[in-house]
């Protein structure tokens, strides 16, 4: 009998997880289209998110072409430019990052990593995807309505959101709001599922403190999203009422085109409060899963246990909690009470503490590790770089006095792309290279992967690092062209803009190669085997690769240890999967058993 954990007796006696009835599918439609298997839903989510993400990538290239080489491309006029900026931002933040991390990764990894057969509510899960899919269709449809999509910026600030002169104020705004509403409804169904599954469907021995950090990240992010998205929903509903019914929630009394509008007394500031009450947690909705995924990938590829697991968990929780009390740092120049600014600068800087704990722990995990520079590891280390970089400029912008001159300049654009675009995207790539072998049974092509990493990493720095200097030079964001202010814009700015555009085109080309790699390796990749990285978490221990319906064979795995038993002294192999009981651990000296 193995030695028990130190406080095993303080827990309730083990209760078998009830075997759930899986909805078995028989036809093509229920297997591939209206599937209730979390893994299929995950792939549906991911493919949809990546497809719409490619559209947003294309939009960003169009934006860059205009900025790098103004007046060259007649296709882009001031209105379409603003529309591209708006749609690029909205798609990337909500429809790509949120959907991919929670809908894609969440659906695939939650049941597999906690040792469950499926989500708690498979049918609701399917419905969640189809709501998401419809919301994407509605969003894309706005490109085809008269006037095109809204061009108010992804922050959608009224009053200009629905005032004459802004592109897309007729169909575009309405479709955007409806699409967000549908997205939020769909997400709420999915999010309920993720949280309930993590709470209720963990297999025997999978205590909270034995969950991989990926699951902790997804869990916290889902909780944030469930509580924060209602703010966006309220704002979207009120915008629709202002626009369609003529109420004055957000619309002040104003003259437009020489005419007094019917609105009176509404507060644009109220919208900003609601928007950022969602908007700031949103940053962490995409960052927390990234934190979790990176922790697991670093531990696996450095063959070392994650440094400070408990601190990592508590830091996730602390960041999640604090993320609700910092929203107004996006509004320093909005005209709110200046004392508020002081308060929010303080809370913002406090967030740096748990975040720094995480960064130190990642670096300390690598310290003396047996680092294998496989592609997921490259991207994970790339994440640490971009995240520290973006985090540092966050310290600048978090301070009111520094933020005021930098507000609405390219410094801000550089900052948030580093910290919440590049860092999570690096993680997404790391995760795809890491888990693709489990999902398809084949490895991605390594040479292409290396090129992809280096072009993306160096290229992204070439794009976003110069933007900080543009910002310090006072170049404002969201401008189509600098017009009469050109004399104040130095020659170097023009050159730098052209340079950034060239880098952006190269990085985009590398992404196409990545997509090609994804498609090609599906059939022609090297056979991966069940556990190519020698990882410990449960998803690598399934009977079949890719895992079949129901994930595990006849019996659910029993968990005996945390997922970070890499390089355990004395053990024969440098990894001990979670489902290996202590008495079965092979030691170097045969006959010596370790618990």
């Amino acid at each position, binding site marked *: 009998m193995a030695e028990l954990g130190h406080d095993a007796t303080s827990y309730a006696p083990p209760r078998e997880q009830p075997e759930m009835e899986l909805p078995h599918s028989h036809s093509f439609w229920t297997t591939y289209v209206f599937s209730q298997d979390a893994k299929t839903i995950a792939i549906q989510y991911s493919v949809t998110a990546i497809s719409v993400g490619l559209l947003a990538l294309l939009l960003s290239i169009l934006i860059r072409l205009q900025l790098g080489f103004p007046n060259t491309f007649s296709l882009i006029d001031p209105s379409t430019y603003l529309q591209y900026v708006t749609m690029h931002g909205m798609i990337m933040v909500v429809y790509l990052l949120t959907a991919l991390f929670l809908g894609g990764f969440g659906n695939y990894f939650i049941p597999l990593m906690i040792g469950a057969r499926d989500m708690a509510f498979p049918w609701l899960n399917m419905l969640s995807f189809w709501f998401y899919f419809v919301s994407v269709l509605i969003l894309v449809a706005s490109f085809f309505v008269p006037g095109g999509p809204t061009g108010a910026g992804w922050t959608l600030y009224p009053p200009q959101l629905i005032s004459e002169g802004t592109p897309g104020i007729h169909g575009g705004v309405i479709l955007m709001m409806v699409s967000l509403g549908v997205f939020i409804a769909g997400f709420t169904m999915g999010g*309920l599922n993720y949280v*309930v599954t993590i*709470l209720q469907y963990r297999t025997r021995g999978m205590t909270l*403190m*034995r969950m991989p950090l990926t699951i902790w990240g997804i869990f916290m992010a889902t909780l944030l999203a469930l509580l924060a998205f209602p703010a966006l929903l309220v704002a979207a509903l009120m915008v629709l009422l202002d626009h369609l019914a003529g109420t*004055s929630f957000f619309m002040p009394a104003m003259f437009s085109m020489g005419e007094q509008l019917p609105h009176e007394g509404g507060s644009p500031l109220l919208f900003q409060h609601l928007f950022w009450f969602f908007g700031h947690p949103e940053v962490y909705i995409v960052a927390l899963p990234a934190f979790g995924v990176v922790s697991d990938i670093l531990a696996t590829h450095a063959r070392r246990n994650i440094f400070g697991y408990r601190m990592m968990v508590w830091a996730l929780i602390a960041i999640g909690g604090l993320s609700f009390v910092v929203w107004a740092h996006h509004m320093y120049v909005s005209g709110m009470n200046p004392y508020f600014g002081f308060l929010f600068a303080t809370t913002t800087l406090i967030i740096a503490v748990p975040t720094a704990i995480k960064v130190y722990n990642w670096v300390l995990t690598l310290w003396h590790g047996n680092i294998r520079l496989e592609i997921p590891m490259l991207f994970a280390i790339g994440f640490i770089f971009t995240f520290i970089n973006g985090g540092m400029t966050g310290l600048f912008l978090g301070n009111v006095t520094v933020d005021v001159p930098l507000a609405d300049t390219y410094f801000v654009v550089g900052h948030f792309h580093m910290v919440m675009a590049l860092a999570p995207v690096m993680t997404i790539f790391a995760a795809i290279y890491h888990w693709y072998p489990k999902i398809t049974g084949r490895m991605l092509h390594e040479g292409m992967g290396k090129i992809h990493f280096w072009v993306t990493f160096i290229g992204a720095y070439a794009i976003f690092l110069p933007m900080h200097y543009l910002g310090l030079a006072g170049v404002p964001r969201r401008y189509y062209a600098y017009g009469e202010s050109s004399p104040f814009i130095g020659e170097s700015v023009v050159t730098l803009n052209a340079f950034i555009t060239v880098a952006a085109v190269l990085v985009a080309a590398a992404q196409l190669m990545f997509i090609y790699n994804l498609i090609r390796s599906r059939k022609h990749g090297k056979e991966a085997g069940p556990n190519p990285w020698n990882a410990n978490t449960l998803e690598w221990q399934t009977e079949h690769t890719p895992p079949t319906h129901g994930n595990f064979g006849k019996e659910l795995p029993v968990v005996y240890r945390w997922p970070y038993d890499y390089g355990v002294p004395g053990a024969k192999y440098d990894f001990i999967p979670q489902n290996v009981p202590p008495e079965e651990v092979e030691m170097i000296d045969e006959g010596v058993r370790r618990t």
Partner: protein
Amino acid sequence: MTVTLVFLAALLAFFLGWVLSRTVNVEPWVADGGTLNDRMPEILTTPRVALLIFLAVASSLFALSISAYHMRMAFGDDWLAVPSPALLWVNSAILVLGSLALQWSWNAARRDDAAGLRRWLYVGGGLTSAFIIGQVLVWRDLNAGGYYMTANPANAFFYFLTALHVLHLIGGLVAWVRTAKRERAGASPEALCSSVELCTIYWHYLLVIWFILFALLLTT
């Protein structure tokens, strides 16, 4: 945002207490014989947990709406309070009775009393529908009295908050219809107990929300 922040702080305090009780003093790196277990207590079945989390989401939505109400009221001096029609009191009484009826239905389900379950389930659904019709009448009366949605932010918020509440009730009625269908198909009280219970808890929750909203509309 005070209302929202107080709500979130309460939620976070509860969550922190729960997480800390299960994570502090645990040594995750220690392996054992597979007996460690920190499942949720038996009373928290999967549907109950799901409902509780959904109620947290709905509470966030209502808290934010109430915060917006307070903020908008403080921003402009164009706020003209809406008179509260007497019908609202009648509607409130109907909603209380609806909640009570569902409670009795749930009690009957637990006693394995099929007749009582059926009777009170339908009475509860009927009363809820009556409440919704009553709210529509209130809106019609206000509109007829010139309190258009566009006339004043107070009016707009009145319609917005009450409609939000009614929409949540309609969502509840969807679940109620599904339960009633199963009841008609001859499901036993034991099989229905969980569904009736979820409906009842949701109705009680919406009743509390209604009283908060009603108090807010009465006092401002």
